[in-house]
């Protein structure tokens, strides 16, 4: 856990050979991957909740969605900063960034729905939405890519990278994933604690 934070620090120390601002990419892309895994995990948990109706899955699912939202926010904040440097504008409807924006909006909707429902309906409905939102992700990614008919400088960093960069990128991805797992465990505990306390208080009030 603290090791995850240390790794995240450590990544900045690892050297690479291109322009310094390129360093943003490590966290930007890794955050996007982690956000995606977080949402995939939410979808899986939602399905499991709908099948098994165990509270644990709902807690895990919502915690994962929340952390996914945090990582998504990071992508959306670092993206424009990088874009401002590279292309001079804050936002340019680049494929990945736009898809991430839509993704972000979908999961904000997830939490709005959760906030507006009572405890019994909340779990079921947000699970349903979790599944639907995740299903939309590949469709959105694919369609946004085709949607923009501008020719952009390739932002694909999956092309060949010199090995020192690949190493630091992998390290940062690992670090972010560990951070995600850590935050997930923590947040799930909090969700479960909260629901337990709610139940206790409710019992008390109605005794």
């Amino acid at each position: 856990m603290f090791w995850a934070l240390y790794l995240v620090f450590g990544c900045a120390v690892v050297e690479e050979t291109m322009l310094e601002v390129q360093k943003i990419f490590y966290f930007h892309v890794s955050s996007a991957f982690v956000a995606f895994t977080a949402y995939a995990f939410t979808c899986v948990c939602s399905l499991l909740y709908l099948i098994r109706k165990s509270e644990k899955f709902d807690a895990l699912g919502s915690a994962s969605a929340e952390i996914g939202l945090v990582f998504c926010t990071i992508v959306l904040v670092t993206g424009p900063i990088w874009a401002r440097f590279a292309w001079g504008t804050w936002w340019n409807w680049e494929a990945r960034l736009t898809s991430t924006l839509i993704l972000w909006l979908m999961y904000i909707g997830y939490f709005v729905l959760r906030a507006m429902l009572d405890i019994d309906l909340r779990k079921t409905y947000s699970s349903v939405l979790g599944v639907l939102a995740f299903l939309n992700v590949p469709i959105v990614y694919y369609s946004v890519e085709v949607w923009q008919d501008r020719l952009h400088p390739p932002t694909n960093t999956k092309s060949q990278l010199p090995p020192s960069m690949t190493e630091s990128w992998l390290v940062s991805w690992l670090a972010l994933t560990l951070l995600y797992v850590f935050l997930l465990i923590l947040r799930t505990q909090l969700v479960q604690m909260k629901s337990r306390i709610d139940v206790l208080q409710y019992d008390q009030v109605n005794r």
Partner: protein
Amino acid sequence: MLIPKTFLFIVMFVFVLFVGLFLLSEIPVIITSDEVFLALSESIDESVVTPIVNEAKVEMLVKQSVAKLEQRQATRLKYLVSAYFAIWLIFFVYTFWLVRMQSELLKRLELVEKSRKA
């Protein structure tokens, strides 16, 4: 698994310090003008083609281009640091919020336990 709040504060403080140093002070000069002069005279000595006549002008040009390079590096570093700062800020705010929620929940738990015993 409780996160000690103090750890967070330490991490944040360290990073704010780091960021502040970068943004407020000047980017440390990596190439000094003595080095420029030395490198310039060395390369003039080593040059195979006809020797350059106006050394002083060339030296001035080199100094100017070095200054430009430094400025560019400063801008790039500013972007880099602000991006990292944003990331850390987001993580920190989120973790802080979690820790606060945790302490609130613990307080509520205590209250409920107390009134149950009573």
